[in-house]
């Protein structure tokens, strides 16, 4: 079991993840081309200007209106991407598998970052339940997705702390991690891929066509 999940399953997850993203991108590019006005509208200058205002916390009106959400969301997304890439445990695996040496995070920093991801997921779930305007547009799938994102982090953390049988937790950790990666191209988690494009497109429309700011 351990051999399968830490061998072929990881391969399936990575190939599925990158292949899925590539497929989605290629098919969407064709669709965008069909719309005639989409690609010519995209402007690196105005798209970039908008992106910058939306990735930096408190650079835009919307993010200043909700300081708590902005801080949680920003911290959550940074930790979500950085922690798995630079976790020491993962770096060891990179080295064993391909011999690549990789910079890694100090263990206690990684622990805190993992907890931030878990807390972020809990915050989003709670917000869905508490805020009427969010609850109104929340489906079961929204909760499942938040739990799915949280799962590999929670199980990885528990395994690392060795609170429960290590081997079992690692298997669950890898399986949930694989499901998470495989789900990204085909669920709303795909906003990871589309965010720069939707934002840049709106920034281009506002900037180049309408001479206005969109933040």
């Amino acid at each position, binding site marked *: 079991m351990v051999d399968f999940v830490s061998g072929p399953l990881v391969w399936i997850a990575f190939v599925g993840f990158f292949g899925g993203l590539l497929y989605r991108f290629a098919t*969407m590019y064709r*669709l*965008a081309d*069909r*719309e*005639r*006005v*989409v690609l*010519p*509208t995209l402007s690196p200058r105005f798209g970039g200007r*908008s992106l910058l205002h*939306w990735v930096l916390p408190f650079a835009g*009106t*919307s993010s200043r*209106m*909700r300081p708590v*959400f902005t801080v949680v969301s920003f911290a959550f997304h940074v930790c979500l991407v950085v922690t798995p890439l630079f976790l020491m445990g993962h770096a060891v695996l990179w080295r064993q598998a391909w011999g690549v040496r990789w910079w890694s995070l100090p263990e206690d920093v990684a622990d805190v970052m993992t907890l931030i991801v878990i807390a972020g997921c809990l915050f989003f779930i709670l917000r869905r339940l508490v*805020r*009427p*305007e*969010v*609850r*109104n*547009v*929340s*489906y079961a799938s*929204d909760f499942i997705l938040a739990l799915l994102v949280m799962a590999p982090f929670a199980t990885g953390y528990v395994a690392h702390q060795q609170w429960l049988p290590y081997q079992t937790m690692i298997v669950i950790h890898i399986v949930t991690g694989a499901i998470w990666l495989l789900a990204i191209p085909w669920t*709303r988690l*795909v*906003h990871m891929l*589309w*965010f720069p*494009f*939707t*934002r840049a*497109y*709106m*920034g281009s*429309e*506002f900037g180049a*066509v*309408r*001479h*206005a*700011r*969109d*933040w």
Partner: protein
Amino acid sequence: MADLEDMKVIDPGVDDNIAKLTPERIEQTINRVLTKESAARLQVYLDTCVHCGLCAESCQSYISRDKDPDFAPVAKVKDTLWEMVKRKGKVDGEFLHNAARIAFLECGACRRCSMYCPFGIDISYMIMTVRRILNLLGVVPQYLQDTTNSHAATMNQMWVQQDDWIDTLMWQEEDAQAELAGTRIPLDKEGADIMYSVIGPEPKILAQLIANMAIIFKVAGADWTMPSGDGWDNSNMAMYSGDFETMGRVERLHWERAAKLRVKRVVMGECGHAYRGAVYDGPRWLGWTKPPIPMVHAVEYYYELLKSGRIKIAHKYEEPVTVQDPCNIVRGRGLHDKLRYVVNEICADFRDMEPRYEHNYCCQAGGGLINCGPPWKRSRMKSNRIKADQIHDTGAHLVITPCHNCHSGIEDIIGFYKLGCHVSFISELLVKTMEMPEA
């Protein structure tokens, strides 16, 4: 839960036409628009929205209705487009009635929400897609459909006949001459610097605005002309009813008329949606990235005249004024600074609204909303209480509205909420305050 009274509004254009539909036609039409008429943008927007609700606070109808979650932009998409996608077009008449109420009355396509969505999802584009579907099903509020029918039959919004058009221009020329001797409204002057175009309601109900502009052109010494035939109307309600074929015809004719007159640019009257149609939505439908001839909004033109000193203000207007930033020329063209320059030149006591510039609230009249007519007025008023508060807080006696929809919409709000102030176009103030040459 939306107000039941608003949900029960009966509109023959919506309800009588729903009664004629078959489930097959509904399904086919929805699926055709979702698969054949839309592509990357709709797909990406549907995929990317994570249902976070951050757009809610941006919408004047959500704020005005005490944060009723059904009025959040995302909820408006959920109750229309998401359901159509989810049910693969298998929706019933009751659903369509509610979808029409949401798409035609509760969203003015003002695009404020796109500035609050972290992903920049064009929510108004999705609502316009719903309008498109409803249009193809023949489900459009009756008053709005009437303006579209007028566009299709007469190429102007208000059933203005050819002889009425020329007669109105001659009448306004005479009126303008009474104010300033020698004022002309030159018709079909080929090679003039400027073609001046207006919206259909000007000759129909606000003809004096044409005389105002003739006087302004005369004082500025402009080389200008107006078309005597079709193509003079730059308004476009078909754009908002979802009849994009008619929208395209109207825009093409307007630009062809300008091209035939070989003018250097088109100056248009104080209207917002007409600017959007001519510069943005029209060209897009026609497959152009931009209009073939530069289009100058009245606000930009007044700015140019005042800044260069071609017209001068003799005595400023003294009463306290505020200004409504029209969505389609501020969020749609960034004219807010020029607008304030013009207002400050003309008025001595200008008080700004908060929020302002690109973040100003829509008047809840543009986007075809006011054109849906009297059955929906009460609902429209309830959805913009925040605008009444905004105006009240400025303490202004006069609201300057350089857009026809804002003008009518704010007038309605002033009446409904008993604010006791008035509305005015810039041209009305300009002819009263500017220096006139000696007769």
